[in-house]
Each structure stands twice: as structure tokens, then as C-alpha cells.
């Protein structure tokens, strides 16, 4: 993967949605060897130039373990494919703190057609980061956005600082299950402010699901009144019966289209991307690195501008570091 010719051919094959090529591109982006960094940057640049990253819809899917996120993701993929859209999925699982290894089990719950090049699923370990997203996840999302119409990013856990998914997604979908006590604890932890859309999954459980649904609606109204906004939409879904899935896609589409028509999407993406790049920068170069780059505010401003100018976040991060006095 050294020559430009090789890179060009990889980009071409990836943009033609050849699974092995898309996978290879993500692997390059994931690679931690310093020698490959310029290659990864160049690759992202070429991909975004050849592809259509701006129009890809990015949906973050998060929620506590066991609520059926993967099964719901599977249904979303199915629905998007029915609508004729291509889908890339990034499923992030936690790494083992003991060994650094990980069991990536989401694929087991996804019903995929191995012959369909219009859908693609990549599992990734969180790499021991507290946030729900792997270090390389940002780059992987950029690869997927260049190739597919819709990009779903699935992360486990919500609470603590595991809400990184909001930085790489246009919309964050929070999935919870009935009768789990989730609603109450989310209200306490202030988590209900993060999602743009909520789904109470396992609607097939019947009355418990409906009760959780109305509890949640009431809580969201209260918290929206307090902050002066309007409450995010809540849906009852079931991965088993497929109930609510079509509507969920509709609601996500509506949100996206509103962002576009109000001219907010670009701004939102730049801000999120800059925040993500800032976090990665700080992790990589430390607080001292941030200071050398002029402090947090200055750094975020620099990153925001670089990203607004069309640099991908790897580039923007490197440039910000290079610019240090």
C-alpha cells in the first residue's frame, strides 16, 4: 500500500462497493503504525473526493447492553435496502481491559445477505477508550460515508462518557427496553438530553412496553420544558415483529431533511467533527500538546476552520500539531 497507483485502485474498488476493498480501506485507517499515517490521510482524501461523504446520512445507535440494538440495526438495514439505499454499519464493542482483546459479537444478531454488496458491516473494538468509540472509528466512518448512502454506528452503553457516538453522527438514536429501570436512571444522569430520537424496543412485550413508552414521553416533555426546547420523538419498536421500524426510518429521514432545509447540517457536522478531532488530539498529544496549540479554545477554533475547509479530521489534527510554535 505504498504507491499512488495501488491507492487509486483501492479507492476505485471501494467506491464500487467491493467488500474486500472497503474493508481494506478501513484496515488502513485503523492501522496504528506511524508509517501508515500519511497513507491513511491520503486514502481518506481520495475517497471523499471520489465518493459522496457529504450526502451520507450518519445515524448513531446507542443504548445499554441487551436492549436489542443489533437486532434493531438489522431491521433498519433491511428497511433501507428495501428503499433502495446502500448501508454501511460500524458496530463497536468494548475491549477487554485485561488483555486488550475483544469479542465482537454483533454480527451474530444481524441478518445479512452475503451476496448483497449494498450492505456492509464492520465490527470494531473500542480499544480501551472510555468513550464508546474506537480511536479509529472516526476514520472508519469517513470511509463508510464515502461509499454508502446511510451509515449506522452502533455503540454499547450510555452514561459515563460513553456518548462519543454523538460526535460522528448527524442523529443519535437511543434504544432502551421496557421495565429495565433505564428511564429513571437516564433522567437522573441527564442522558435524555443527548439523543435526537428514542426507541423503546421489544414492543412485542405488550403492556410493559407501552407503559415505558408513556413514562418516557412524559419525562421528555418535562425536560424539554425545563430547557425551553421541544421534546425529541419517541417510538415503540420491535425487532422481532418489525413493528415501528418503517416509521423509525421515516422519523430519522425527516430530521435529516429538516437539518438540510434549515441549512444546519454542515454547521452541525463541522462542530461535531471538530469536537471529535479535539478529543483525539488531546488523547494523542496530552494536555501539554493542547497548551502548545494555544489552549482548548484556540485549538477547537483551528480544528473547526480546517474541517470547514474540507480537511478530514486526521489532516486537521496533524496540521494543528504541526502549527505548534
Amino acid at each position, binding site marked *: 500500500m505504498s504507491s499512488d497507483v495501488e491507492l487509486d485502485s483501492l479507492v476505485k474498488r471501494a467506491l464500487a462497493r467491493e*467488500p*474486500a476493498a472497503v474493508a481494506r480501506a478501513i484496515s488502513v485507517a*485503523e492501522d*496504528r503504525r506511524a508509517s501508515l499515517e500519511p497513507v491513511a490521510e491520503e486514502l481518506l482524501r481520495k475517497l471523499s473526493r471520489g465518493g459522496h461523504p457529504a450526502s451520507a446520512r450518519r445515524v448513531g445507535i446507542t443504548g445499554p447492553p441487551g436492549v436489542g440494538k443489533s437486532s434493531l440495526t438489522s431491521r433498519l438495514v433491511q428497511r433501507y435496502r428495501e428503499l433502495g439505499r446502500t448501508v454501511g454499519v460500524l458496530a463497536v464493542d468494548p475491549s477487554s481491559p485485561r*488483555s486488550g*482483546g475483544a*469479542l465482537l*459479537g454483533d454480527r*451474530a444478531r444481524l441478518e445479512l445477505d452475503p*451476496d448483497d454488496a449494498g450492505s456492509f458491516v464492520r465490527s470494531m473494538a473500542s480499544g480501551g477508550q472510555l468513550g464508546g468509540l474506537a480511536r479509529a472509528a472516526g476514520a472508519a466512518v469517513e470511509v463508510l460515508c464515502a461509499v454508502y448512502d446511510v451509515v449506522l454506528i452502533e455503540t454499547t452503553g450510555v452514561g459515563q462518557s460513553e456518548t462519543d457516538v454523538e460526535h460522528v453522527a448527524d442523529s443519535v438514536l437511543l434504544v432502551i427496553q421496557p421495565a429495565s429501570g433505564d428511564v429513571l436512571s437516564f433522567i437522573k444522569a441527564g442522558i435524555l438530553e443527548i439523543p435526537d430520537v428514542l426507541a423503546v424496543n421489544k414492543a412485542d412485550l405488550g403492556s410493559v412496553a407501552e407503559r415505558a413508552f408513556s413514562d418516557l414521553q412524559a419525562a421528555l416533555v418535562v425536560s424539554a420544558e425545563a430547557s425551553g426546547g421541544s421534546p425529541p420523538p419517541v417510538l415503540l419498536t420491535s425487532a422481532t415483529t418489525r413493528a415501528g421500524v418503517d416509521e423509525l426510518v421515516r422519523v430519522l429521514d425527516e430530521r435529516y431533511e429538516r437539518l438540510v432545509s434549515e441549512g444546519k447540517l454542515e454547521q452541525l457536522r463541522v462542530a461535531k467533527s471538530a469536537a471529535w478531532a479535539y478529543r483525539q488530539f488531546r488523547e494523542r498529544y496530552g494536555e501539554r500538546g493542547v497548551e502548545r496549540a494555544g489552549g482548548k479554545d484556540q485549538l477547537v477554533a483551528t480544528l473547526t476552520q480546517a474541517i470547514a475547509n474540507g480537511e478530514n479530521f486526521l489532516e486537521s489534527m496533524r496540521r494543528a500539531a504541526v502549527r505548534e510554535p
Partner: protein
Amino acid sequence: MAAKDPPWIMRTYSGHSTPRASNALYRENLKRGQTGLSVAFDLPTQTGYDADHPLSRGEVGRTGVPIGHIGDLSELFAEIDLARMNTSMTINATAAWLLALYVGVAEKQGAQPKSLRGTTQNDIIKEYLSRGTYVFPPAASLRLTVDTILYTVEHVPEWNPINISSYHLQEAGATPEQEVAYALSTAIAVLDSVRERGIDQQHLAQTFGRLSFFVNAGIRFVEEVCKLRAFARLWDRLGAERYGVRDEKLRRFRYGVQVNSLGLTEAQPENNVVRIAFEMLGVTLGKNARARAIQLPAWNEALGLPRPWDQQLSLRTQQILAYESDLLEYPDLFDGSKVVERRSDEIAEAAWAEVERVLAQGGAVSAVESGYIKERLVASNAARIAAIESGAAVVVGVNRFTESSESPLMSGGGAESILRVDARAEAEQIERLVAFRKARDASEAERALERLRLAAERGENLVPASITAAKAGVTTGEWAGALRQVFGEYRAPTGVTGARVPELPMAYDQLRKHVDELERAIGRRPKLLVGKPGLDGHSNGAEQIALRARDAGFEVVYEGIRVTPKEIARAAADEGVHVVGLSILSGAHLELTREVKAELEKLGVHVPVVVGGIIPESDRKELLGAGVARVFTPKDFQIAAILENLVDVVRQAHAR
């Protein structure tokens, strides 16, 4: 001398290739003194596929006999009088169907259903946990089970409609307490469902009396004696307290046994002869908790399929204990033994506490769906393997006393010491199937299928409609296909993500260092895809490899059982793995590995493939010759060593 007790029913779990070949084997076995039959079905029959279905490729006639329709079953029992036979059928997801075919064949022979004796295993819960031949979601599966029970209690009253199997739980690593607890939890789930159908107390008590168990017995045979006494006691109590069964006879704990296969070794395989004999003691010594039926594995099962001679040796082992020894002349040997009593109490108490934990979660079905039981089993198995790896648990010839003279039984590496399934069996079976379909009255078969679908939708008992379908010439794949349309298919939790495993042996410190070095060299954590292609559901090995690989620092993608070669290749492509590991225990390793490699090639994925399974020496060479990077067999019990091999394989592939 007191009159001897009658011996238990002696069987051998057998069947392979074709109905005709299996029929010959059965008649031979009966001539040698076997007193019952135990039918092993191939995986397509167990999972409801016809022999010509793409998923059946390489599996037809492999782990048992293929039964595609009533013609096959007639041939299987040709010249065997079903009115006098006692037949055990290891069949679960498709149990109602095989029972229907059996009734159909018996009637053709002129036997009355009321006279039929035998067993359908019909325990779906343990299929989700261990054995893997489930098809439908739990609720629909449980309904089929209950349909079969209700039908037989009324129409085939001597039949054991369900053999609740703790056997496979032990094979999956269960402790004695877990074995008892989860089997009883399953029984409760079944009996509660029966009760919910609204039958009266007298029928409920009768049903309770027809439930039997299929138990495992390992080499710790003293503990096994105690386990079975604990089992019997809890069963009696459950009948009296939860189901109000007054008649003591109906509360008797009835069980059959296959002794442990898990502990049989590939190294110094002749030692297994002795293991098998000792293991049988655990289920025969005490008259009060003695097995009703016994089948013994063969000494060479860790090498491949046993030959008729190997099975004969197992039958002789039973006959010597029953007819030659004085065991059956005495009453219970342990009555009054404080030692046995105390251990039995302990097991009963711990098992009951676990039953209560399962009930508190909503019962066995909920605890299967949530992954709770599976995770407990995976953790126990990890502890068992760790003990063997560290030497804390001795396995003679494997981790101790490993030096050996050359075995005369294993000349030529043992290639001659196993049964080879006739390579033409699959093609022959497909031909028979096609001819059968052509000869039947197509519209009658279609009508019968329509009736079956309707019965499924309406919630009617499915056995009568299945018997009609059997007689109308419906095939196994069509029967299951119709029900798949109504019920859907199911994927069970893999249990590996939540399992808590014990601390690792020292060997892993070194291994982790190697994994970290590898990561630095290749730029990413080494990523392993663990794949189980084909219909084989024995996932214990794959699960342990996945867990240990994670703990050694690998990133592991594991999709569970029954994935197609195409799906494995696509997962390997999307996931950007460094190595693909296939686990295949059905014997179909040559075909399936070839297919996976071809699919990888098609997608342009060039990563090393390793294979693990029950793989004879000659096949091992063939696999290596076909470009497989490593082959692992039961001899490779050190998982750390297997993982070291994977590190090497990835390093070498990267260096190229």
C-alpha cells in the same frame, strides 16, 4: 442366591450413510445381543432439510442416517418388528415429524400405535444451549414438544415422548449441580406448558409419569452416583409439590444414559475402553437410581466414526457387567452410606438453589433467551479446560503419563481404525429422494402440507396433521419448511460475550506478549474469525477458542453456529480479519473447508485458514495439502498452544 434383577435396555447409538446400510447394522447389532435400538440421524434430518438442499451438502448420512420420507424409515426398520422393539430416537426440532413417520411405518407393518415403545428425545431447550439442532423460536418449539407429549399420552401411551437431556449440558461443561438444575428447569418449563393447555389433574399426573431423562455419566463416578440420587429425590419432590402427583410410581425418576464422550481422548485411545467401563458404574451400582437404558460410546470416538467392531466392544462391556458380574443380585449398595448421602444432599441443595434462580428469571425459556444459562455453561467449561491445561485435573495419557508404546490398534496413524462413510451415500440418497417425489401423488402431498400449515396457524395439535403428511409422502424438508413459514427461524445467544472466565494459566502471559508484539508489527490487533460452517451445532470448542483468544488479546468475530461458507467468507471480507478458524465436528471438514476457501477466493480475501475438529490423520494431510495453514484435533488440548500457532500463522502471512 436371590433372583437377579432384570438388566437395563442395551443400545448403541448408531446409523450412517443410508437407511439400507443402517438397517443392516441394526440387525447385526440385535443379533449380538442388543435389546433396543438407538437411532442417530444425520444433521439435515435433525434440522429439517431435504438431502438436496444446499445446506445439506457434505452432511447427508454423515453423523447418522438420513430420513427424508416414509420410504426411508420403512427401509430403516425393514424386518424389524416395531411392535416388539424399543426404539430411542435422538431427534428434537423435528421430533413430531419423526414420531409421525414412525407411527406411519408401524401401521404399515400392522402394529398398533398403542403397542409402540420407545423414546423421542424432543428436548429443545438443551439444543439452544449445547447441541445446536434447533430450528424454530423457543415458544413454537415448546409448543411442538407439548403437542407430541399430549398426543402420545393419549394415543401411544407406552411411548416416552420427551427425554430431557442433561447429557449435553455436561458435554457443554456443566457441573453436576448445573446438570441437575437446568434439566429440572427444562422439565418445569415443559410441564407448566402442558398444564397451561388446560388438562385435568389426572392427565397431568400421567404426563408427569411419562417424562424421562437422558443423563451423562463422567469418570468421577462416585459423584455421579450421588448426582443421580439427588436427581431422583428432587424429581420426586417436584412431582409431589409443584404438580400434585399422588401416585409414587408416577414420580419415579426414569432415565437412560450415554456415558461421557467429552472425556474420551484421542491420545492413547485404548484407555477409553477403561474409562467407559468405569463411567458405566456411576449409573448402575445403586439399584435405587439405576439407569433404565444404557448406550456406550466407542473407544475411538475422538478419532472419527466407530466401526461395527468398536460398537460391539461397547456392547460386550455392558453385557459383562449385567450378565457375568454379580451386580444385579444385590439390593441398593449405598443404602445407609453416610458418605454418599451427604454428597447427594449437597448436590440436591445446590441444584435446587439454581433452579430457583432460573425460576426467578421467568423460567428456563427466559434464561435461555437472556443467555444466562449459556453463559454459566461457557464459564464452567472454561474452568474445566483450565484445570486440564494446568494439570490440576489429571487426564491419563494427555497431561500425565503421556509416554506410550506404539499401539497395535492404531497402525498407520489410525486411518484404518474408523468407519468411513460411503462417499456415494449422499448422491444415492438424493436419487432416492427425487424418485420418491416423482412417484407420490403430488396433489395429496400438497393438501397434507396445507393442512399442516393451517393447523400451525390455528394452534391445533400438530401431530395428527404430521401423521397425515407422513402417509401422504411429504418430505422432511417440506414438513419443516411449512412450519418455518409459520414460526420463523431462531438464532440462540452464543453465550461468549457475557461469560465470566477464570484467571488464565501462566502460559498466557507469554502468549499475550507475543500478541502485543504481533500488533506492533502488523499495525492492528490480530483479528480472528471463528466460523462454524455447516449444520453441526457442537459449538463448545468454538466458544472456548473465541473466549481464550480474546483473553490472549485477539479481536474475535464469532457469529454462532450454522453459517454458510458464503457467510463466513463475507464476514472475513467485511471484518478485515487476519485469520479464519473453522470448527467442524460433523466430519464434513473436507467439503466445507474447500467451499469456504473457494468463497474467500471469489471475494479476493487472501488470509490463512485453520481448521479444528474430529479430523483423521489422512484428512489432516489432505487439508494441509489444500493450503490450510494448521489443523487441530482433540489432541491439541492446550488452547494456549493453539493460539501461539495462530500468532505464527498471522506473522508468516504478514511477512509474505
